[in-house]
């Protein structure tokens, strides 16, 4: 099939275009800008018929307007990064609580202070408990595919939750990769017109977002159940997706895990680098594999535990940090393994903050440290970018 060179930002914009998003509120922030500039250009050229491209005065207003449009039944797309995502934080919970299937591309960038423009995952993972579905792409093809899938999953009546599709800033957002851009007809077959059942409409007054008393807990529980339902929906959607587009994704991405004694757990674009390093280490006879986390919420507990259950030692590589604790995904992995009959050793590595390059040699270094830990029977939690801190 014909491949086109596009950046991650453009891949997300193609997703919004192909799903025929009707409303695109936006506010510029590096490194997301190219995504909304692409949509602005298409809008000006008449390539987005029936879509309103709305320039807002802040990210907070972007998500607020997204809520307003989704509440009356519009299919909404937006994108942001870093500080912008944090400014939206308040309204993210509201969008999830109102069960509005908004889809947003997040282009990860480290958080201030000090200022960095480059990527790490703290901005994205800061939204972990917001009630959104959270997907994290490895490459630009997956960015586009995830946007298409995100709408299908988010709009499913068993789910009805907003969804974030994350990509790493710069590494993906500004890097051209050859990808397959599906035809509008294929996407229409995969994702029909949005026809919400509970929206505000003429002759049907609806109250959205009122206060509640003791029922609060029921609504929160429904949000949780809907997110858990998404796990099944995600798997179901893969059949249709594969049938129409010829590509298939799984709840987790497993790489050379069949006989792996050592497993690296990664997220996002650094996984590609790690896979290359693993191929080289395999040539040296090291039995190492990789588990890439691509769905952060809902948490695919069984898929993660199943993929890791035979490992002897695991290195959780976090491109983020919870100061005073360590990597954010490190304890999530340990908790997931806790009920296994046999517990592997789990070490944690904080790497690549503020775009610090995660090279193949660093991946190999982590693997060797993991082998040392296994030999010593002692896990570690380490800040791998630095000699000492």
């Amino acid at each position, binding site marked *: 099939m014909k491949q086109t060179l596009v950046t991650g930002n453009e891949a997300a914009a193609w997703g919004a275009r192909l799903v025929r998003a*009707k*409303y695109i*509120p936006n506010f510029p922030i590096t490194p997301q800008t190219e995504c909304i500039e692409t949509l602005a250009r298409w809008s000006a050229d008449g390539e987005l018929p*029936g879509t*309103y491209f*709305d*320039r*807002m*005065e*802040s990210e*907070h*207003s*972007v998500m*607020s*307007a*997204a*809520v*307003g*449009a*989704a*509440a*009356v*039944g*519009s299919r*909404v797309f937006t994108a942001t990064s870093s500080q912008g995502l944090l400014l939206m934080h*308040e*309204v993210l919970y*509201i969008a999830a609580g109102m069960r509005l299937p908004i889809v947003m591309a997040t282009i990860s960038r480290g958080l201030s202070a000090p200022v960095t423009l480059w990527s790490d995952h703290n901005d994205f993972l800061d939204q972990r408990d917001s009630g959104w579905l959270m997907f994290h792409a490895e490459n630009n093809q997956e960015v586009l595919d995830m946007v298409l899938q995100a709408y299908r999953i988010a709009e499913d009546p068993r789910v009805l939750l907003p969804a974030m599709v994350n990509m790493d800033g710069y590494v993906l957002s500004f890097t051209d990769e050859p990808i397959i851009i599906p035809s509008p007809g294929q996407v229409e077959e995969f994702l029909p017109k949005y026809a919400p059942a509970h929206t*505000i*409409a*003429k*002759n049907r*007054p*609806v*109250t*959205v*977002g*009122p*206060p*509640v*008393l003791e*029922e609060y807990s029921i609504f929160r529980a429904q949000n949780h159940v809907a997110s858990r339902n998404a796990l099944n929906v995600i798997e179901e959607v893969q059949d249709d997706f594969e049938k129409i587009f010829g590509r298939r994704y799984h709840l987790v991405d497993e790489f050379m895990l069949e006989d792996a004694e050592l497993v690296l757990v990664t997220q996002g674009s650094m996984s590609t680098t790690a896979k290359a390093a693993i191929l080289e280490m395999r040539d040296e006879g090291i039995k190492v594999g990789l588990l890439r986390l691509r769905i952060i919420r809902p948490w695919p507990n069984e898929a993660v535990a199943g993929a890791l259950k035979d490992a002897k030692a695991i290195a959780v590589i976090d491109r983020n940090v919870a100061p005073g604790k360590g990597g954010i995904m490190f304890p999530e992995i340990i908790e997931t393994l806790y009920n296994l009959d046999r517990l592997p050793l789990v070490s944690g590595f904080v790497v690549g903050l503020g775009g610090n390059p995660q090279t193949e040699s660093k991946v190999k270094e982590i693997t060797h440290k993991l082998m040392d830990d296994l030999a010593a029977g002692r896990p570690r939690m380490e800040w791998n970018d630095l000699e000492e801190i």
Partner: protein
Amino acid sequence: MQEFKSLKDIPEQDYFTGGSSACAGCGPSLGLKLALKVLGPETIIINSAGCMTLLPLYPNTPLKASWIHNAIENAASTAAGARHGLDNLGNGDMNVVVYAGDGATYDIGFASLSAAAAKNERIIYICYNNQSYGNTGFQWSTATPYGSETKTTPRGKENPTGNTIVNKDMLKIMGAHRVYAATASLAYPVDFLNKLSRAKERDGFSYIELLGACTAGWNYDPRLTIKISKLAVRCGMWPLYEIEHGMLNLNKDFNELKPIDEFLKMQGRYRALPPEGVERLQELIDEHWAELKEYNKQRYV
């Protein structure tokens, strides 16, 4: 455009029914009840967090129109999204109306309001101004008048004046956004409803600010809401005027204003304001009134 000539013209049909949790004598809820008579049931009210947020309480609502409460600082942006969503789906004839308090309008939501107005979104923005953060128990906002006591501007030995900050001139600010901007009063419902009716027909942004007398915060007998609202207009505390295309139109002109004392002495929030404070407040009111008289029927912003 639907025009109201007298009280008799005001429709009997209500879209704000019984069963709300608002205080007896609540000005803002009366304002919404009146507004819905013009706006009708094909309206989405976009509310910002405040007293009115408690009108619907799951699973009940006193309203026969749609309602979205998002947060406190984003009613205008939520409204913009709803407007475009409706327009896109062929529901362009539904009204999108913000009903937000003064704190949500003057302070925390000002950026979103300013942007929606600058973009001339087809929204009616009604600010119910009770001159405070009312729902949290009456704290200072930039709409609080000089000399008012609030929970965060209490009178004390060091500061007997209470609030020493002069409130924002919001009408002028909104007028400068080149939109339709008007004040309104519960004591002049015909004027209020005509302004709403006009806003409803406009192909763009309208800002209407209603003085929302607050029986609990202002500390007066709930029976006096309309009387106090009327006095506010007669004393020049709340002049009725509108700005369109930058031109000022004074809707209720008086040869002479009543002294502000009459308005102040009815309310607990001004009870202990020292005479110098009353004088300063009177000065501020006189200055504003003189300015309105000077620019009436002329370019104002």
